């Protein structure tokens, strides 16, 4: 457990490094946020007043300390686009992204884990080959392409599903499916690899020898031990899921944090870009820590120093 604690302690340090890097990068820009915020026609005096109000007249180091102090209180500045606090803008969008991402991961797990177990149990069979080929293709498709084709077929032609936006459950179907493709392929492959390795162990041979069916052997004995790599892959792929969500949300006009980021990049709304970036890095780091914890809980070998 002590290793876990040490890692938890390193997390604020890494976040500090990330925030400093993002802060310096954004403030090293030639453009002037105050000028951007005030608009092209604003008089020089307004811009100066705004610079003082935003603290932009102070040295960079002081600005960063000031930023950290406010960030510790949940204040990430004001959106240049609509003038509302960055934290409010993000908190408004976050539930949509969490719902979509959570659903996508759930789908990926519901298909990936049984699929991987099936492939491992029937290694070398046609089903196994087909599943492996499907994961190769699934991991190679551009998400936005699948999204566009899905919209064309199910929304425009068949009219079964809404084209875009958020609303009732039918709005979730296409975006969640598109977003789940990549994690589904990864989880299926990892489960298969993990289960294959476990199936070669002596205790599995014992289970089979005492007359258990292959399926019972896998679900009751092998899967539990094969899932540690799956947990790791799920956690380490959160970054990939976030990247995928940015594109998927934009294609489906989904009101989540990903589309907020793309819109903010188009408007050069730096406070929002900074807030979303820091939030996503924090999410990835926390997910890694959580995965470490889960694995340490289930796998005594991973608990050592």
């Amino acid at each position, binding site marked *: 457990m002590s290793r876990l604690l040490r*890692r938890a302690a390193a*997390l604020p340090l*890494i976040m500090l*490094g*990330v925030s400093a890097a*993002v802060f310096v*990068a*954004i403030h090293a*820009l030639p453009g002037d946020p105050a000028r951007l915020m005030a608009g092209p026609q604003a008089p020089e005096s307004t811009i100066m007043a705004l610079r003082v109000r935003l603290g932009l007249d102070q040295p960079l180091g002081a600005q960063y300390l000031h930023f950290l102090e406010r960030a510790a209180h949940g204040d990430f500045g004001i959106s240049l686009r609509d003038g509302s606090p960055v934290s409010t803008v993000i908190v408004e969008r976050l539930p949509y992204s969490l719902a979509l991402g959570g659903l996508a991961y759930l789908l990926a797990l519901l298909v990936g884990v049984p699929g991987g177990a099936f492939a491992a149990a029937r290694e*070398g069979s046609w089903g196994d*080959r087909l599943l*492996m*080929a499907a994961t*190769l*293709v699934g991991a*190679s*498709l*551009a*998400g*936005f*392409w*699948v999204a*566009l*084709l899905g919209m*064309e077929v199910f929304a*425009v032609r068949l009219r079964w599903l809404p084209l875009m936006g958020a609303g009732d459950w039918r709005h979730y179907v296409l975006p969640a499916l598109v977003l789940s493709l990549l994690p589904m392929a990864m989880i299926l*492959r*990892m489960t*298969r*690899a993990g289960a*294959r*390795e476990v199936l070669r162990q002596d205790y599995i041979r014992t289970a089979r020898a005492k007359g258990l069916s292959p399926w019972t052997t896998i679900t009751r004995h092998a899967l539990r031990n094969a899932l540690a*790599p799956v947990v*790791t*892959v799920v*956690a*380490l792929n959160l*970054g*990939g899921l*976030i*990247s*995928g969500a*940015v*594109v998927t949300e*934009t294609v489906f006009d989904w009101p989540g944090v990903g589309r907020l*980021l*793309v819109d*903010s*990049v*188009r408007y050069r709304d*730096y406070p929002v*870009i900074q807030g979303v*970036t820091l939030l*996503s*890095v924090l999410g*990835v*780091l926390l997910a*890694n820590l959580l*995965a*470490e914890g889960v694995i340490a809980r289930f796998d005594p070998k991973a608990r050592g120093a």
Partner: protein
Amino acid sequence: MITMGIQRLARLLRRLPALPGAKEPELLIGAVLCGVAVLAALFGPMLLGGDPAAQDLFHVLQPPSWSHPCGTDAFGRDILLRLVYGLRLTIMEIAVSLVVAAGVGVPVGLCAGMAPAWLDSAIMTVSDVVFAFPGLILALLVVSLMGPGLFHALLAIAAFSIPVYIRLARNLTVSLRHSVWVEALQVLGASRARILFLHILPNAATPLLVQATLSSGTVVLSAASLSFLGLGAQPPLPEWGTMMSDGRNALGAAFWPCLFPGLAIAAAVIGLNCLGDGLRDRFDSSSRR
């Protein structure tokens, strides 16, 4: 924490099963797809002839036919011709981002592997900080700082691949630097730089090459994503992501302006992934270091 995470992921990735059955078919599929792509990029424009930007407003959104095998887009441009020119762009994208990512990552990683412990851990910490960013988020940050455009998008994509090369080159160096022949070179008085770049680098080349092939697929997908979002290549460049972004507006009336660029991306990425997996399996003993 992240260090361990990366090591674990690397270990896991190595355990990823390749396509079941014989190992060679995968290498074959990858080599054939990539070979065909290179030939098409080299000779396609000559064979097809014509200007990929030439508009023909009397023949917009024509469905696939003998004269336009992939149809025409909303400006009457031939989609197949644009795809072939897009292939050249794609190869250029892979080349630029790999050269930048490996060009920065490999020397830094080699040096970290030979450096004193404090410098090594300092370099790896910085590398881990960069690695903590989700790829596309870092790319969007870079593009928002430098402005949209294909070259900036490629730099952004290179930025998030750099830590991968740093770690791989460092680990390879660490595993090689205590070998007998390195000690012999040291005794003979070879300089550190000479050992690193003339002796360790050639021995580490195969795993680095496998990594480069495997990450080429990511480069293609990321570049197309950024272009699709309007932050990478700008119209009228026949970049595949840009073509799909154009085709999106015609959906409902015509699906082929979207369909074919997506198929091209899928074929390219499948080819690169097969090639990478196949190479990894073939050179397994060296990539396991």
